[in-house]
């Protein structure tokens, strides 16, 4: 329960170490880093990718790191968000903000559907059932050619300008596009910080630490798991919707189980159950992928090997290892 107790009182008197400072202002720190981030990156497209996958990993980390359930089906949540956002624009001509809302709703709903079934299982089963169900979602979207474009992906999500309170913002300009997406990502980080600091956030971690004790304390463990999974779906749906706007196309591979595996790798690399881990993991992973793919097309070999090394030697991830050092 020690970890849960900490997140109930994030504003306690501090010892002044950098770790305490980082914990207290965690969402603000993320916001500042995100705002100056594109200025140090070689190209903005990569920075946008890091933002989106960081958000995707943030949602995944809520289930994996904080709730302690390993899901191998998050591609279904991410992909449904992307597809619903895209379908709303391409087939129904919805404005961009409504399309993003549709993406978030899609992520929430898909998480509810998968969650209701998968939560019935526990432990190692959860990974298998979520993976199988997300594979099912893949086939469903694959076959709904009229809506999703099937194998070719959903094309034609063209959002050129964004109208905001009478202002017309040019969404083609990569730098502006980055900051528009960044606004959503930063907002999501503030919401996540709020959820984790709330009493509900403490219950999530209590369930992970000791299920029996949480149940004995009167908490509905099953409901907590389901709610957390659904919340995670909302974050992943938002990430998917932003991805659809960013790419102007939703490829069918977004629902492939490798997309589920990708976020597992990112979360583990960054540090599971840590607030900054997902963003750090996404940045390191994607930059690495970018560098390695310059000199070999077989970057998956390198990435897989690094992941194996991570599981064997650094299971706490980059940020988790740093925290352990900082606390010492």
């Amino acid at each position, binding site marked *: 329960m020690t970890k849960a107790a900490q997140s109930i009182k994030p504003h306690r008197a501090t010892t002044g170490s950098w770790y305490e400072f980082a914990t207290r202002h965690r969402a603000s720190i993320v916001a500042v880093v995100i705002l100056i981030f594109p200025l140090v990156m070689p190209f903005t497209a990569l920075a946008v990718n890091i933002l989106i996958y960081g958000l995707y990993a943030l949602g995944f980390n809520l289930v994996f790191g904080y709730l302690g359930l390993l899901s191998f089906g998050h591609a279904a949540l991410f992909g449904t968000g992307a597809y619903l956002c895209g379908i709303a624009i391409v087939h129904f001509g919805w404005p961009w903000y409504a399309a993003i809302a549709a993406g978030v709703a899609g992520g929430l709903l898909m998480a509810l559907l998968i969650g209701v079934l998968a939560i019935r299982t526990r432990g190692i*089963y959860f990974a298998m*059932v979520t993976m199988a169900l997300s594979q099912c979602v893949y*086939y469903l979207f694959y076959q709904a050619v009229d809506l999703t474009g099937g194998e070719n992906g959903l094309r034609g999500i063209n959002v050129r300008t964004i109208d905001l309170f009478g202002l017309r913002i040019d969404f083609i300009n990569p730098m502006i596009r980055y900051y528009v997406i960044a606004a959503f990502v930063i907002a999501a980080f503030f919401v996540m910080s709020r959820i984790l600091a709330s009493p509900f956030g403490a219950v999530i971690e209590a369930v992970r630490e000791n299920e029996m004790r949480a149940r004995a304390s009167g908490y509905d463990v099953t409901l907590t798991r389901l709610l957390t999974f659904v919340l995670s779906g909302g974050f992943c749906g938002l990430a998917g919707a932003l991805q659809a706007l960013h790419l102007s196309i939703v490829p069918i591979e977004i629902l492939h189980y490798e997309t589920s*595996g990708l976020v597992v790798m990112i979360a583990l690399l960054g540090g599971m159950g840590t607030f900054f881990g997902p963003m750090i993991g996404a940045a390191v992973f994607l930059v690495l992928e970018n560098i390695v793919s310059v000199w070999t097309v*077989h970057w998956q*070999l390198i990435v897989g090997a690094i992941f*194996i090394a991570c599981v064997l030697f650094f299971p706490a991830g980059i940020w988790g290892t740093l925290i352990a050092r900082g606390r010492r």
Partner: protein
Amino acid sequence: MAGLSFDLIALQLFAGLALGAIYVLFAIGLSLIFGMLTVVNFAHGAFYMVGAYVGLYLISIGGNFWICLVAVPIVIGLSGLAVERVVIRPLYGRGIDYPLLLTFGLSYVMVECVRIAFGKTGYPFDTPEVLQGAVDIGVGYFPLYRLFVIGATAVVLLALWLFLEKTSYGLIIRAGARDPQIVRVLGVDVSRVWLIVFGIGTAIAGFAGLLAAPLQGVIPEMGGTILAEAFVVTVVGGMGSIGGAVLAGLLVGVVVSMTSLFAPEMAKVSIFALMAIVLIVRPHGFFGRAGLMS
């Protein structure tokens, strides 16, 4: 619906059993490894795929299918032994998720190595000449090779059953699955038992890959699809239960082939619907022990 005779349905049923036989082989390996080691082998699909590629390679250097049937399980089994010894063993006692994550990373590496060695595109895999053609099985003509797949699976199952139930080594394995601590106290080197079980499980996966190759060809990604479907089999049958894996594997095969007859567009989705029903009605599967779930 007019063209659907009893014979057609019966034939489709047999086709489903042949497909199910591959699922059974894949899933018993998975189940055996989980039952003994509590490791969910995410690289099982990769071993299956490498099995098919090793067969392809052996035939390209002049071997024939019968040599492959013996050599492929040996090669894959040995590589399974190496994997368990080198990378999985350090993870015992460190939480059930870690071996799963590790084998997931391993599957990336294996798939990419095969892509480097054989290229990204798939290859056809010729059915051995003796097994080409069809035979009359009473309700109509049925491809001989599929019949062979069913037979070979039955032989493997029988051999595995004899090994587990009738040999002293099998006794140790069964005891190790129930209570590794006591077995260790009795002076048995449990880690060696686990090593061998992992080897057997992967050897069967390689064998299944080889058997599946003439049915669907070989591509580097073939393992990923069957892995998800095998998870359905293990959930339906009950994790860690070999009998459950056999029954559920055949059931899943028949469900796939029957839906592809009646509603082809639903064939891929049907097995997941089956899993959803089992999860609602009986969350620990047909033969799963309820305790394994928590």
